[in-house]
């Protein structure tokens, strides 16, 4: 069995997860601070890839990155770099498709953050950078790890946009998902089954990880014992 598709899939998913990690957190942090209307609009735009068919995402990417399109042409002329039908083209596809998962989970985590913690740190003279890395991120750790793992899983399983922008070239752009389709199409049922099992195993491990992280929720318990009835007896 030729293991190239596994290696290629992992490499694509890993690189796109790194990209998504930073972009997703950045977007979540700043969008949470925006005024309501702008927030609503940006939220729709940033979440759209989650609900669009991956082929639509692939179509947009081709319009942008294709050799005769804006970005594609520019990269080709200046760097002699093709952005489609190469292994790294799949990174764009999986990054765009998986981005909303990171963005939304991170935003949920940031929104659950108790702002008085940030205020307290501010009145103690701590910089906003310190607050972000030492208070906000640790507080939101679980959400952010969960978002990262989910994005990785989604990036690993990307098929639609990937097949449009990277195609299927054995030993070059083949990923697990495109290989399963190719093997099934050519009648190699046993081969397809092997890759299906590999994929199932990876996905199960990823989801188990997410579940374990969610169970280990360690939010502080609030002590709110009422001592009301002081003004009026």
């Amino acid at each position: 069995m030729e293991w190239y598709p596994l290696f290629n899939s992992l490499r694509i998913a890993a690189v796109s997860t790194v990209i998504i990690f930073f972009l997703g957190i950045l977007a979540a942090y700043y969008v949470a601070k925006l005024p309501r209307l702008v927030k609503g609009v940006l939220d729709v735009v940033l979440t759209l890839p989650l609900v669009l068919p991956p082929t639509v995402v692939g179509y947009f990417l081709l319009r942008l990155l294709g050799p005769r399109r804006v970005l594609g042409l520019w990269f080709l002329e200046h760097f002699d770099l093709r952005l489609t039908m190469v292994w790294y083209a799949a990174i764009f596809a999986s990054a765009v498709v998986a981005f909303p998962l990171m963005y939304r989970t991170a935003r949920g985590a940031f929104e659950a953050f108790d702002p008085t913690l940030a205020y307290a740190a501010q009145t103690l003279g701590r910089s906003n950078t310190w607050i972000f890395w030492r208070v906000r991120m640790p507080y939101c750790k679980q959400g952010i790890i969960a978002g990262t793992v989910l994005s990785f899983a989604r990036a690993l399983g990307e098929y639609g946009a990937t097949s449009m922008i990277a195609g299927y070239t054995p030993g070059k752009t083949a990923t697990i998902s495109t290989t399963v389709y190719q093997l099934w199409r050519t009648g190699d049922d046993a081969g397809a089954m092997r890759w299906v099992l590999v994929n199932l195993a990876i996905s199960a491990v990823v989801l188990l990880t997410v579940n374990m992280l969610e169970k280990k929720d360690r939010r502080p318990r609030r002590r709110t014992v009422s001592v009301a009835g002081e003004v009026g007896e």
Partner: protein
Amino acid sequence: MRLSVDIHKDFGPFRLDAAFEADSGAVTGLLGASGCGKSVTLRCIAGIETPDEGHIELDGEVLFDSAAHINLSPQRRRVGYLFQNYALFPNMTVAQNIAAGVRDRARRKETAERLIHTLYLEGNEHKYPRQLSGGQQQRVALARILANEPRALLLDEPFSALDSYLKWQVELELMDLLGKFEGPVLFVTHSRDEVRRLCQQVCVLDQGRSQPMQPVEELFEAPRTLSACLLSGCKNVSRARPLPDGRVEALDWGMTLESGVPLPPNLSHVGIRAHFLRPAEGPGPNRLPCTVERVVDEMFSTVAMLTTPGGGQGFSRLRIELDKAAWAALSNPKELWVELPRERLLLLAGA
């Protein structure tokens, strides 16, 4: 050192207009019902919230001035803020939380150790906030603030998150600490008992408007406004109308009262504390016939709710509080004449 505040902020249906001064060496109470703008006032002073207009000055330094476009960041104000839920960093131990407050990196460890000792936190250095009791959490928060060497302290309902049996102990500890603090201390609360025990002067906030600062004794002995009177715990209040002969008509109680003193110009209400009401033999000045509606046995006294000639609703009822023995001597009356001694009347101006 002096903290002076004069701020305005519009929240749509609610408007905050707070003006007062607080000096070093005294605890200044901000007393008001919930939602009256107490916490917002503190947040404006700390720089977490920005007033629409006004001026905040601490120790001669302007922290905020809308006209001069000065608005120091919370980081640069050096004001200690004790939050209602203490806002301890859940991911840090007690020692790390306190060290986070120390500005001078070189003295971080030493200062944290000193404060752990001063605030009786030894043995808890490596615990996380969620493993501590409410009182301990509050001491950690205080240690973290003191480590920061603030110029003023803002305490936002510091006892509201504590079990009531813990409160007494924590209150005593806090009083000791506040006695040693050199800058002005602002203490926000809705509890008149806390104000009486902890503060020297008090400013009543009524629906976002601050009333003149007064000594704490004055709030309890001679409140000047209706809201101050209600916040000080007085239960018997009636709408009032000055009469040409210098007497006062208590509209809700349906009676006319002699006060024996000149009436304040904008008299709107009259009040009297429950334990100053006296049972009387029969008609006379400042007396009225009541019907006993309900009797409640308290720990050390008996409280009776009385219906006045003014009616049986809301303010028109009177509450009388007597020694258990004194009440027993009346042998469970249905009707009762009550006297409102004129030297005990509280003459109140509208807000």
